[in-house]
């Protein structure tokens, strides 16, 4: 093809559009959650097995680093959840044009962050 290609692309001006940003975060958060599965299953096991393991788990989770990790996973879950609901809405044709795609992306980012802060504050 000898079609002329655009020259002097201003790479610093090219941005991933907001829906694309939400999309890649959906992937990243999903992958993070999958990688955290053994940890989460272990936590479930410790929390249910006996009062001793439950107390042990609570002591570990009281550590600031553990809390930070849990907060990160909470955000990953909430973002994945909200972005997933947005995809279901798109599949059901509730999101029809670019304007709505952008607005719903904003809603996903804001709501998932807000819920992370609210639930995080409630848990600690």
């Amino acid at each position, binding site marked *: 093809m000898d079609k002329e290609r655009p020259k002097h692309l201003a790479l610093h001006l090219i941005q991933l559009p907001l829906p694309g940003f939400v999309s890649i975060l959906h*992937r990243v958060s*999903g*992958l993070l*959650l*999958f990688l955290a*599965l*053994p940890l989460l*299953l272990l936590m*479930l*096991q410790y*929390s*249910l*097995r006996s*009062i001793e393991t*439950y*107390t042990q788990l609570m002591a570990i989770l009281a550590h600031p680093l553990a809390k930070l990790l849990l907060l990160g996973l909470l955000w990953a879950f909430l973002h994945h*959840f909200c972005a*997933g*609901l947005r995809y*279901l809405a798109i*599949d059901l044709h509730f999101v029809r044009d670019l304007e709505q795609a952008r607005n719903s992306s904003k809603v996903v980012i804001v709501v998932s962050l807000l819920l992370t802060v609210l639930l995080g504050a*409630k848990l600690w």
Partner: protein
Amino acid sequence: MVSRVVTGAHYGLRDWLIQRITAALMAVYGVALAGYLLLQPHLDYDVWTALFSGQPMRTFTLLFLLSLFYHAWIGIRDIVMDYIKPTGVRLAIHVLVIMVSLLYAIWAMQILWGM
């Protein structure tokens, strides 16, 4: 054009649809569990284990986890198909994810029914 039916065998739509059905199921379970826990005035070991002592809760939790593993398998496979091209590496990751998910499923049953 051949008319495609969702219930037919091995269309791309099958995985696409399963991912959405498992997502809806997990969303319902997640919201219900979060709502129940947030409404508890004192969430301690007794409340937590009492919740998981009934057969229906254990069954739905297992259903949730199985949905999660299937949902995650489709998602991971999509990511692998996009970024990893060599067939050998791709196959190795696919096999690894499936084996790990099956082990998780067995582990989940041991957790839920062995408490």
